[in-house]
């Protein structure tokens, strides 16, 4: 940008319209198709339009739009990266401060036969938090002396995660500049487009009342334990409380759930429940841990059929509510 002496204030200059058009298009594609097309043949426009798109997305000031845009840019990066040479991937990895090197194949044990790269487990873990397939779990990787083995395609996928984090970080910065009106207008248009699109996406409001019959097995078990006054571990208590709050139960009713415990203290319970509901402290409303976290801490009692299709207890609940609704068109049983 500096080299071309491109100034933000000149962005509405017709000379730059192709760049600004492409920037807008990038976000539009992200909104509509959750991806950004690869138009690398116009490399100059492609490169210059990126920071402008970032500015537009920042100006749109909508965290959901921004996250969607970052994800779309990451997908684009993945599609490009997976076709690059090993040398190129290694260079990109270096940009993100990775220790990544070609995998040494150990002939004696054919350890890493299908692997192209080895990278440190910390680089690996920092970029797999959002990846849910079981093949990404560290326990399912060949690891030796701190190095995780990756195929070229997998390396591209993890580097794309770095791109996503990078874009998200850029979007998170406060706006320290004023965009020309023509550009701001485009930003506004994109925001409108996003809101329309989002309205079309299935958006389900949680019903006001909690439906016990729709609880996943873990919550159902914990709920029964609470009702019968059994001891519940700290993390399980957190899971149950945050679940009930998110299912629409009032703080008062959640507190009542814990009353049967022999060591029940209304003051302590209220403090904890209000904290989780976001009425205290950091004002964050907490959501329950994901399924795999509950599994790690031994809270998952085993999965039923529907569990296999979701990764979060609340996702289970929403789906089950839908199923119950279709099965009994009249009012479902409620607690």
């Amino acid at each position, binding site marked *: 940008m500096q080299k071309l002496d491109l100034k933000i204030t000149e962005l509405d200059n017709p000379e730059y319209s192709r760049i600004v058009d492409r920037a807008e298009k990038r976000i539009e594609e992200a909104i509509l198709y959750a991806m950004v097309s690869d138009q690398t043949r116009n490399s100059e426009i492609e490169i210059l339009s990126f920071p402008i798109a970032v500015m537009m997305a920042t100006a749109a000031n909508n965290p959901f739009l921004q996250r969607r845009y970052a994800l779309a840019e990451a997908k684009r990066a993945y599609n490009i990266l997976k076709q690059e040479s090993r040398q190129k991937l290694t260079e990109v990895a270096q940009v993100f401060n990775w220790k990544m090197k070609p995998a040494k194949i150990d002939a004696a044990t054919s350890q890493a036969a299908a692997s192209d790269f080895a990278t440190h487990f910390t680089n690996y873990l920092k970029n797999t938090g959002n990846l849910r397939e079981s093949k990404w779990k560290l326990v399912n990787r060949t690891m030796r002396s701190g190095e995780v083995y990756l195929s070229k395609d997998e390396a591209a996928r993890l580097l794309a995660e770095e791109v996503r984090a990078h874009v998200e970080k850029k979007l998170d910065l406060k706006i320290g500049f004023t965009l020309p009106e023509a550009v701001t207008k485009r930003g506004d248009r994109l925001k409108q487009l996003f809101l329309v699109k989002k309205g079309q996406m299935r958006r389900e409001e949680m019903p006001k009342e909690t439906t016990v019959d729709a609880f996943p097995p873990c919550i159902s078990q914990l709920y029964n334990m609470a009702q019968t006054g059994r001891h519940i571990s700290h993390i399980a208590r957190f899971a149950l409380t945050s679940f009930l709050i998110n299912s629409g139960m009032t703080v008062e009713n959640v507190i009542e759930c814990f009353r049967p415990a*022999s060591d029940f203290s209304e003051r302590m319970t209220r403090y904890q429940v209000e904290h989780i509901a976001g009425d205290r402290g950091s004002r964050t409303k907490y959501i329950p841990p994901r399924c795999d976290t509950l599994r790690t801490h031994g809270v998952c009692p085993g999965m039923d059929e529907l569990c296999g299709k979701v990764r979060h207890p609340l996702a289970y609940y929403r789906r089950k509510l839908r199923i119950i609704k279709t099965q009994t068109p009249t009012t479902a049983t409620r607690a």
Partner: protein
Amino acid sequence: MNKISTQEFIQQRFAEYYKQNLSSIQPPTTMEKREFAFLLFKERAMLRHKGFKTAEDFRDLLQNVVPSDVYFSSAYYEKPEEEMDAKGWMGADLIFDIDADHIPTPCNKQHDTWSCKNCGVTGRGTKPEKCPKCGGQKFVDVSWPCPICLGSAKEQTMKLIDVLDEDFGLSLKEMSLAFSGHRGYHVHVEKETIRTLDSIARKEIVDYVLGIGLEPAVYGFEKGEGPKLEDTGWKGRIARGTYEFLLTATQEQLEKAQLKRKTASQIIQQREEIVESWKQKGPWKTLKGIGPDSWEKIIRQAIERQSVKIDTVVTTDVHRLIRLANTLHGETGLKKIEVPVNEIEGFDPLKNAVAFRQGAMTVDVSDAPQFKLGDHVYGPYRNQRVELPTAAAILFLCKGAAKIAEETTHVP
């Protein structure tokens, strides 16, 4: 000598210990970024959010307050003395806690006792979920460190060190290992690149160590050619675990693993053949009549045997407080003591962690199981007055299993 309470007496002994051993109490690395916390004798209250710039300041407080337990945060904070939300988390060391409480042990914890707070019924072993008599759920429980429990914890710790070294490539310099002062061991990993791992990343490390979510198919089982004993990572662990299970399991254990009775007897009859065939041709194809279902069960057992029984909550918590080395454990009067990683095998916690090495005293013991400390075995005692070396007496007092005898005079 004026009459003093047992608690005051313990605190006085702790004060003496800290006075005499002050220079051995080293604050952790980067102390100015850590939160410190002290459990007070008085009302068992926790003094939290303390920060120190120098070792002297820290030792001054230690001597003035004489807490029952001393902790520091695994986390680094911009402002350690602020409330949690305002501390400014910068990162955290990676901590593993192995406690006999999380491991099934051959002693079945028969030395532990519990009593129901509601009806007073008492029992031995791990406390039940519900009182068998009145259904109450609140208990007073006393757990004792025993050589068998501690042996199991040590075995798990050695397995953990093995995983951290071979799989995670952590050097002995990056790990510090310590006996906790009660029933287990702590492994503390300090390494720049690990500090910023979030809770989700640490959960993956926990799952790796415990073998949670492990899919044997990933390691090539579906193709009929499994891992070899010498393979690294979980691949080799599955192979070694399977090998060990098939070679040593009794009929009962095999059936407990839900293998059919017939399959179980077949394995027992074929043990020798399995080993031979394994050496010659590798695993899996060698057993007639053992289908994929049976293999799956065998492999699950192998994973279970190879997994390291760590406390999952400690490792995933990025704000955890940990006991400081060379400070006393309020429940035992033993000290948390660091053990060089390569000396763990010969380490005897009930000898090396003894803090009070001199003197003897008389105490009234209400109930204590047979107990080993140093080279001696004590007890069991029930409602009797005994003269004991200071360390053993303090342990009973800390456990609430004894009171100081009224005419006691402490012999320093």
